């Protein structure tokens, strides 16, 4: 895709674990985020979605091995030194994570932290940074931002803290925002507020968002496109509308079916039998094969990524006959 603010190509991340083994946490992921676009990255625990976010942010566990390309505005982030990464983090690329309390320093006022986020990357006076921070706190919906500027984080509710984190993250108009489960720790009525805020601000500023979540409901509510991850790989991606209306990969279908909200009447929920494969020794073929209702002999070979006429992609042999391979 041209014009993508973030382009991930064939990204692989291996993380060392005790016993001299490696977890192939991300295995050949290709993904793009356009300007002002929100792309959902959805999957269950251990699927590699947060590791992928960490790889983009340059925040991986020590000793991790990364291959492939991560292009930010067409510039490869791989190979940046720690110092170079520090310079772009919080400037061109920013992070909002699940727990706002751990993103904020408890000993500094919320306003000072937003102002610091600005002065870390911009040559502006203290006064100008302060004024901009007050403005940003207002934009993210902190009531009476000038009065609350000097309050420490513990004087704020979880939802209000997350608003402060968003203010700091968007302070320098980043090209890309990685939002890793940004509303998972929040109550549902507060979650709705924060999702609206994120969407509003990033669409307006043209920031591309990679929204990492386990919640398909959140994806349906705010994302433009979505990639579904399973066991380190993207098994399907497409527009939110297409993917929810017509999920192609059996895992996507199973995940949608097991949502209680999708089954308003009683009766058993469909379940996915078995367990996620051990990623220190992943199976050779399709990683979902052992749990798949449509498993077939050819699933012993890893499926190709197949491009669909609507622009979506799916990594499953079931769709091979329909269209041709992308690669």
């Amino acid at each position: 895709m041209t014009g993508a603010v973030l382009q991930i190509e064939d990204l692989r991340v291996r993380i060392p674990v005790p016993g001299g083994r490696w977890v192939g946490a991300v295995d050949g992921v290709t993904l793009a985020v356009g300007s002002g676009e929100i792309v959902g990255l959805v999957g269950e625990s251990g699927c590699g979605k947060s590791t992928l976010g960490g790889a983009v942010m340059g925040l991986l566990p020590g000793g991790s091995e990364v291959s492939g390309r991560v292009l930010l505005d067409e510039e490869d982030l791989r190979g940046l030194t720690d110092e170079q990464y520090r310079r772009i983090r919080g400037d061109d690329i920013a992070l909002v994570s699940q727990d706002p309390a751990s993103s904020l320093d408890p000993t500094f006022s919320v306003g000072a932290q937003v102002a610091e986020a600005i002065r870390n990357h911009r040559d502006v006076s203290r006064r100008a940074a302060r004024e901009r921070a007050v403005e940003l706190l207002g934009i993210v919906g902190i009531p009476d931002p000038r009065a609350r500027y000097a309050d420490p984080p513990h004087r704020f509710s979880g939802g209000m803290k997350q608003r402060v984190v968003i203010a700091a993250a968007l302070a320098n108009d980043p090209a890309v925002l990685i939002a890793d489960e940004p509303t998972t720790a929040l109550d549902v009525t507060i979650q709705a507020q924060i999702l609206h805020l994120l969407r509003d601000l990033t669409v307006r500023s043209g920031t591309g968002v990679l929204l990492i979540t386990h919640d398909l409901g959140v994806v349906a509510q705010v994302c433009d496109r979505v990639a579904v991850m399973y066991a380190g790989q993207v098994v399907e991606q497409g527009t939110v509308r297409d993917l929810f209306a017509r999920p192609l990969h059996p895992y996507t279908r199973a995940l949608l079916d097991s949502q209680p909200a999708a089954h308003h009447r009683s009766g058993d929920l469909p379940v996915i039998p078995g367990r996620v494969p051990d990623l220190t020794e992943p199976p050779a073929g399709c990683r979902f094969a052992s749990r798949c209702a449509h498993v077939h002999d050819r699933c012993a070979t890893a499926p190709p990524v197949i491009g669909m006429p609507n622009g979506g992609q799916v990594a499953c042999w079931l769709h091979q006959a329909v269209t041709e391979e992308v690669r």
Partner: protein
Amino acid sequence: MTALLDVRGLVVTFPAPDAGLRRRRVHALSGVDLSVGRGRTHGLVGESGSGKSTLARCVLGLQRPDEGSVVFDGTEIVGLRGRALREVRRRIQPVFQDPLGSLDPRWTVGRSVRESLDAFGVGSALDRDRRVRELLDLVGLSPDHADRHPAALSGGQRQRVGIAAALASEPELIVADEPVSALDVSVQAQILNLVAKLQRELGVAVLFVSHDLGVVEHVSHEVSVMYLGGIVETAARAELFADPVHPYTRALLAAIPVPEPDARLVHVPLSGDIPSPINPPTGCRFHPRCPLRVDSCSRERPVLQPVTAAHHVACPVALGARPQSDPAPAQN
């Protein structure tokens, strides 16, 4: 038929964590009534500070209320001690969110389940060994799981062990506090199916506490919605979800991110923050955020009033706005 569990006028406060000399108190429950019928699943849903977990702890006898009563099968359990308390605890068993916290990491799964049998003196020693295997089978674990330690199990398997331990004493009521909140959605589905199966086959009643309306809708016969220490609405499941009356219930339902891109929220259903239970609003506790607010809402504390026989709501304004064609019978 009388209810298995009947909670009346429950009030719980505790010292605020950082109150110091100011003696501020957290108003966790402010006069809660709740009934759970035999063999029924009653969903209790609410956000942070709603008091749903405190209510669960009162029913389990883990929290003594300041005021009010908890009647289980005709017996007041508030203030029970000794043998009588032990007997009630046998009949009301907990399932918690994090089974790791309730299972001893040094014990095998078999020993943890066996401990529940021993503690309540269920059957003879030989019976108990057989019973451990039966219980594991009942929750969908194989006999060889009995020799494993909790650390060697997945989250879903651990929750199955937690449920097996809860079932060991053959309780009549299970109080499940966020039992699937820590689980992935595909595993969550397995545990919800298990709870439904046990409920059908064993006839055990369940008080199912959750912040997740989708989950509550799926498992419950009746549902109560809590906000800041009080129940604002209670109804049969289908009625609550099809015809929510309280403005908070309506906002809560609207705020659920449904996995349907065509049902996107166009505006935020509820603005403002959840007030602190340390200094809750006067009158109706929802009034500062309520779209239906009138002057009296800040003064008068609404009580649950019938919409229909099985549907009660604590909002005179919403009730008054409904068509009067089918007046509900008065109930006091």
